[in-house]
């Protein structure tokens, strides 16, 4: 998946949009994407978001994670919030929030990509069709 991280300005609008779209909250920590500042050491930002690789599916001990139409989803009714998938994810793209009883991940709804001022997240826009998580 192509993410043009070179263009990222670190504004974190994507994190905010994700929490608004998926949780109805103004709460960038409750989001399936993270912008990490590497300015101090590498003069750039990193975008951390799920690339739907599916490694977490195998790792989940209760089969709460599955893939459909190329999108990996966690079933919150099955998930025990054990955290194994969070540890397993090669991109560090599953996020824990104290108020949510399962890890939060990107379901490619495309909202963040639509509003990203720099078109950094173009690939996410193509992946989803305006669908948001439960």
């Amino acid at each position, binding site marked *: 998946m192509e993410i043009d991280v070179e263009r990222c300005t670190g504004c974190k609008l994507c994190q905010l949009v994700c929490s*608004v779209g998926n949780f109805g909250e*103004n709460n960038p*920590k409750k989001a399936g994407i993270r912008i990490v500042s590497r300015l101090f050491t590498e003069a750039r930002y990193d975008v951390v978001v799920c690339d739907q690789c599916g490694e977490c599916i195998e790792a989940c001990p209760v089969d709460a994670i599955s893939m459909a139409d190329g999108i990996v989803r966690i079933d919150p009714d099955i998930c025990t919030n054990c955290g194994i998938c969070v540890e397993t994810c090669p991109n560090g793209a599953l996020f824990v929030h104290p108020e949510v009883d399962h890890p939060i991940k990107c379901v490619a709804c495309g909202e963040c990509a639509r509003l990203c*001022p720099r078109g950094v997240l173009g690939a996410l826009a193509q992946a989803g069709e305006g669908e948001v998580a439960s």
Partner: protein
Amino acid sequence: MYGYAGDILRVNLSTSAVTHEPLSEDLASEYIGGRGFGAYFAYREIPAGADPLGPANKLIVASGPFAGVFLPSGAKTSLSAKSPATGLYGDSNVGGHLAGEMKYAGFDAIIIEGKAKEPSYLFIEDEKVEIRPCGRLWGMGAIEAEKALKEQLGDEFQIATIGPAGENMVVFASVNHDIGRQAGRCGMGAVMGSKNLKAVAIRGTKNVPVADMDGLRKVADEMFTALMANPALKAWQDQGLAQVTTWSNSIGALPTRNFHQNSYENAESFSGERMRREIVVRDKACFACPMATGKFCRASYRGKTVYLEGPEYETTALIGSNCALGSIEEVAYANYLCDELGLDTISAGNAVAFAMECFEKGIITKEDTGGLEIRFGSLHAFVEVAKLIAERKGIGEALSGGVRAAAAVWGQGSEDFAIQVKGLEWSGYESRGAPSMMLAYMTCDIGAHHNRAWSITHDIAVGRGVIEGKAAKVIELQHIRPLFDCLGVCRLQWVELGLPLEYYAKLYPAVTGRRDSWDDLLNKSEKIWNLTRAFAIRERADFGRADDQPPRRFLQEPVPDGPLAGLRITREDLDRLLDEYYDLRGWDRNGRPTVETLRRLGLGELASELQAMGRIS
């Protein structure tokens, strides 16, 4: 309460007491947030006559209802206190990512009182609030300390720090955040230093509830879409505020050689294009902002390569042309140095330029400077003097009190070219040819700063020589622009990209659930304006018209060259501007609000207090 986190955090560093106070609906609706909260608590809680650098002063860190919420650039935090630069109410705001983080942690404002027994930092992670010893951070540069704390606590913490200048209580010490964003003005860094407070680190995980999420999403979406379609956006993303330099030079507003001139023969080397080409590494934005005016840059000086955010226009104006430096890279290095030392670049540029002029005129000599040649054009001189200021050594001791204080020490007529109002150094627009802008600087409540009203294009549009009617424009802007600082949102999307104010008027009920119209909010902004004026009047029996004066240079010396050669402002013009301004505000001719005016604005209690003191009638 919608649009707010709902709590105020009070931290007493002397007693280590940490308390939460619910934000009252009255306070929120009447003073909105940010600067409004700052002014409210400063007036109520900082006793008249308090030493700005003593434990009785309080630092109020506050944001407003728009901060951290889904809309363009709800990113502004105001820091307010009694200013050590002016001895009056002072505030300074900073962008970046602090405002939202504070609200996500659950706080609309943090009131910091007293003085810690040892150098400390304030740690906040949601409900967990701790005053921690800062150990080896004390003595570090402001950015260096931020980096160290990020490494220790994690990137999700948003951090504000001071540098050595703040520790040493230089009256124009800044508070630094997000590498290169500063609450630069009014010496808020010195207030932190006086409290033994090196840093504040915050992380929050909570929601900021809003009254009408669907309504908000609709308006915010329109705003983001309009911004993205704006033809000017690309220019802003490309050059940020650096694009001002060439324009400012072309119209005779660029401070040059300690405001002796207002155009600079070398301005082209500071242009936005040159900056982009020569030093910019990456664009850097504040929270949820499409403009990304921050420019992350690289600069080298004497074999040392540094990274910094900036320089933006004010820094280029006050350090670049005002000290007559040679290239944007030189300005960038000086900018980096000020950021690390924790010096406001506007006041530092003024202070060094003032020292340069004093040296060239023989008011200070090599005996005073330890052999250093402090001449216009020398980056070496800038670097050495800036360090002396931060350490308060040699000539830095006098300069660390600001140019007004240094002129009082050095004398010999230097007060005529100490470019300040009320003790705060003048920012980036020389205004001998722009009467409304001159009035804006004279009457700005915190001293000579442009953020409250900026009206040079008004002077150009209606005529530079025109005086009548200009006070009304300044007053209008003095209510609109600070309102953004109350709301906790950046005003650049409106003021620079022309995003209509109607959007902000629609956001307010969607976020807060209150029915205030934009005019209602402007009335509250006027009330806050009068409250900070009242702070000054309560503070000093002799405060008044004499405090609203520009330095004598602008009256005595016509502009020597450039597009406005020969222009100066006359005493008659200044008096007409002030008379008109005071009359329109409902203040007496000595610049004091009347009892009637304060009552009209809902400040009746305060009016009675000041009347009983014999300060107003």
